[in-house]
């Protein structure tokens, strides 16, 4: 450990220490000359050896290779530009696809306990629905010990605000929806289970930030005012924040409490209907509980529910849980689609890289002379190979930088066009950056490895031109082979 610190200190100060060493050896030479011995060795070589002792030669060589690589690429700007562009497109396409996937399925929603949120749906071998009856939801909520909370979302056709001509999108949710997600109101308050959960509580409504700006001009005095939703008066209690993240990617402009649904939708018996699947159910796992355990517990509850209300439950029904803490709840089929898209984008990159590799092999011919000189003055094969790989890496790194920029721009356009929730950003998160590094390395291997191997091998067969003897040799070979059968 101490050795590493010493070596790092040396790296930081190496210029000064090297000068001191030169000075020291100068002193030594003076003293030796005074004693009559004048055979001091090559100072420069000794300083090099001293530098090598500190183990940073690889870094020095890397910088050397990088500088050389930049000069090589600057010599043929047309080729370099085209290669960088080709790589940028190939890598950019992959990064865009991954970015999209990351945004939709991997990045957790910015809510509390996003990793514990699950989507619960009814399944059976013959049936499938994404919703369940509200009384069933209440039953599960009451009896499920593995769920620390259960939320329900009830869809409703768009409602008319006051005297608007166009209706506005709306949704009913359980009063614990916002508290479980940890949403902080931009103005006013969100639903409070203590206040808003009774059917006889005063009717309240929460509005989205966008609606508040568009329809009400961002008026802060809106809180506490009464508006009419399809002719039913209700008090506005709060506004959701601008960067609000809701479950399942739904973004209604008006939020109301499920318990108050019979008030808003007259004569609706949805909340008592055991047979009609109407609400989408979400749950939060108790800390430490796995989704499998929840599914098992829900299985027993489903069987019990079948005894109590046989018409509410199918035969062989079970409740399936899927991770719900991302923007899109991923079903297995969606993963398959994602896999196909990634194969496609990788194919594009592979084609780009193999084309580039072919072009680099062709360029290898023009570099024979230069490589020949370097070998003649003592460069080993490994050294030349490393040099060529560094050049390829330089190209790939430039390509992926441009590709990353392209991908981010594309993402920004997509987010703006599709009216995406405001908490999504186009700037790459750490997953996308690591993915880009991986792509760069992969691309370097694809297009750089074969030409590098080719070039370092070819110098062995063709030494500095010696055409006369090679002609003689080639004339001798057919003679020998024609003699073979005798």
């Amino acid at each position, binding site marked *: 450990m101490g*050795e590493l610190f010493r070596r790092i200190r040396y790296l930081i100060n190496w210029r000064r220490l090297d000068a*001191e060493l030169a000075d020291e*050896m100068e002193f*030594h030479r003076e003293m030796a000359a005074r004693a009559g011995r004048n055979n001091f*060795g090559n100072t420069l070589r000794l300083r090099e050896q001293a530098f090598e*002792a500190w183990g940073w030669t690889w870094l020095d060589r890397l910088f050397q290779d990088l500088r050389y690589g930049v000069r090589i690429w600057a010599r043929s700007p047309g080729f370099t530009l085209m290669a960088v562009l080709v790589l940028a497109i190939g890598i950019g396409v992959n990064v865009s696809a991954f970015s999209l996937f990351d945004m939709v399925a991997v990045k957790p929603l910015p809510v509390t306990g996003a990793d514990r949120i699950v989507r619960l749906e009814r399944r059976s071998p013959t049936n499938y629905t994404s919703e369940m009856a509200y009384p069933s939801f209440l039953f599960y909520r009451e009896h499920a010990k593995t769920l620390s909370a259960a939320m329900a979302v009830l869809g409703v056709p768009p409602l008319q605000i006051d005297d608007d001509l166009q209706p506005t999108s709306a949704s009913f949710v359980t009063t614990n929806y916002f508290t479980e997600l940890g949403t902080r109101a931009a103005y006013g308050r969100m639903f409070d289970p203590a206040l808003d959960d009774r059917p006889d509580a005063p009717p309240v409504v929460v509005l989205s930030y966008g609606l508040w700006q568009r329809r009400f001009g961002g008026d802060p005095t809106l809180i506490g005012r009464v508006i009419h939703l399809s002719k039913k008066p209700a008090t506005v209690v709060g506004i959701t924040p601008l960067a609000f993240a809701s479950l399942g990617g739904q973004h209604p402009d008006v939020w109301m409490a499920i318990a108050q649904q019979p008030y808003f939708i007259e004569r609706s018996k949805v909340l008592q209907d055991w047979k009609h699947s109407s609400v989408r159910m979400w749950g939060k796992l108790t800390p430490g509980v796995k989704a499998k355990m929840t599914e098992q517990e829900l299985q027993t509850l489903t069987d019990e529910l079948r005894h109590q209300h046989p018409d509410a439950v199918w035969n062989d029904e079970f409740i399936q849980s899927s991770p719900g803490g991302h923007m899109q709840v991923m079903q297995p089929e969606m993963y398959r689609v994602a896999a196909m898209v990634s194969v496609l984008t990788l194919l594009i990159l592979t084609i780009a890289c193999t084309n580039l590799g072919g072009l680099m092999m062709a360029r290898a011919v023009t570099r024979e002379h230069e490589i020949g000189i370097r070998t003649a003055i003592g460069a080993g094969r490994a050294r030349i190979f490393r040099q060529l790989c560094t050049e390829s890496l330089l190209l790939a790194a430039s390509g992926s930088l441009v590709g990353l920029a392209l991908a981010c721009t594309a993402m920004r356009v997509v987010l703006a066009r599709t009216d995406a929730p405001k908490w999504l950003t186009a700037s790459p998160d750490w997953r996308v950056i690591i993915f880009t590094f991986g792509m760069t390395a992969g691309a370097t291997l694809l297009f750089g490895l074969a030409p590098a191997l080719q070039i370092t091998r070819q110098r062995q067969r063709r030494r500095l031109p010696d055409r006369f003897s090679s002609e003689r040799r080639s004339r001798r070979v057919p003679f020998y082979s024609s003699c073979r059968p005798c």
Partner: protein
Amino acid sequence: MANSSAPVSPAGTLPMLILRVLQSGELHGYAIAQRIHLLSSEALAVEEGLLYPTLQKMLVKGWVTSGWGISETNRKVRLYRLTAAGRKQLTAEMSEYKRLTSAIQEILRTA
């Protein structure tokens, strides 16, 4: 010891000799070479080409540290000093050296 030569060869024992010479006090590079030359009754002459790289390696390993001082000729010069780790290394190398040389002597005597 990360030295390419065998531990008993003159080049392989140089670190040990440097450590031993520094045991009695701190010296600059030339003085170390001089001391080794004189103490061996002029049998061993340390090449500068071996001395300085070896000193650097010993600095890396932390067996010696360097400080500044004034030479006999009133010149600012770098002095090398033994560290605790260096002392430990010296004892280890000396016992290893004794072990190997007595083994070799046994073979030469009896074989």
